[in-house]
């Protein structure tokens, strides 16, 4: 085997297995997403209305998990980008490229459902407080990442520049998480993930957890389909 052929073999041997794994996993993720979404929706309908917010409180079940996913997916994007930066293995760039569009979708979901929750509860679609603004910046980082990937034709340069942007953008992640503690915000502080335990009742916690799992399954499905397509695109382009 020539040096070039050996390099190609090692560079794509693992992506070949990743294609098979992603193709096999997608149907399971789809079934899990359907089941979890249906159960979450059922419990959301059964959940009581809150005395102050009324049924608008049920927007929490689609808003909070979307915001958590937006952040977790960015953490995965930054992690894969860091590993690409260190190892230069193309699979990490493919993983980052496959995760980013799903992250943008969940961030947009968090922003849209947040506006629809803010209108009846705060009396405003949007306020420029630290939490909302930092999530909007997260959305722009996702868009910038996608634009950068489209702007550079050379795969090596594209992967290098995209990993750098993803790593630089990770600075925004703790700002999103702690913005409600660091600044005075209209957005409420953390009420689920706290050292003293969740501040909401079981009637609200159960559908919230189910929707979180459902959104994770949706992400897994989106990610596995995008990863398979991304890897196939790279094989065909060669």
């Amino acid at each position, binding site marked *: 085997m020539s040096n070039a052929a050996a390099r190609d073999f090692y560079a794509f041997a693992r992506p070949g297995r990743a294609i098979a794994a992603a193709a096999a996993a997608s149907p399971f993720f789809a079934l899990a997403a359907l089941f979890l979404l249906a159960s979450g*929706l059922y419990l959301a309908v059964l959940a009581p209305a809150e005395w102050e917010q*009324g*049924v*608008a409180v*049920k*927007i929490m079940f*689609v*808003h909070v998990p*979307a915001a958590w996913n937006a952040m977790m997916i960015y953490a995965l994007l930054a992690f894969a980008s860091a590993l690409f930066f260190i190892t230069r293995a193309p699979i990490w760039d493919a993983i980052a490229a496959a995760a980013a*569009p*799903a992250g943008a*979708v969940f961030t*947009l*979901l968090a922003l*849209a*459902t947040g506006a*629809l*929750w803010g*209108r*009846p509860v705060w009396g405003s679609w949007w306020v420029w407080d630290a939490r909302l603004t930092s999530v909007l910046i997260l959305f722009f980082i996702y868009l910038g990442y996608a634009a950068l990937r489209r702007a550079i034709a050379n795969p090596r340069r594209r992967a290098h520049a995209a990993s750098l942007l993803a790593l630089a953008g990770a600075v925004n992640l703790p700002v999103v998480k702690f913005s409600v503690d660091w600044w005075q915000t209209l957005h409420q502080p953390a009420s689920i993930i706290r050292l003293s335990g969740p501040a909401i009742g079981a009637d609200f916690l159960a559908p919230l957890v189910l929707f979180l799992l459902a959104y994770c399954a*949706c992400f897994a*499905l*989106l990610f596995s*389909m*995008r990863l*398979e*397509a991304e890897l*196939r*695109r790279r*094989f*065909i382009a060669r």
Partner: protein
Amino acid sequence: MIYTLLAYGVSALLLGLALLHSWLDLRRQRRLAREKTGR
């Protein structure tokens, strides 16, 4: 009530569009791979 319904509707629409877009792209890549390898 209208805001709650809108929030669930927008969520279903966005997630549905994202899944549809990914699925169509994957289907296209699978077809291209089949055409290239002749299998």
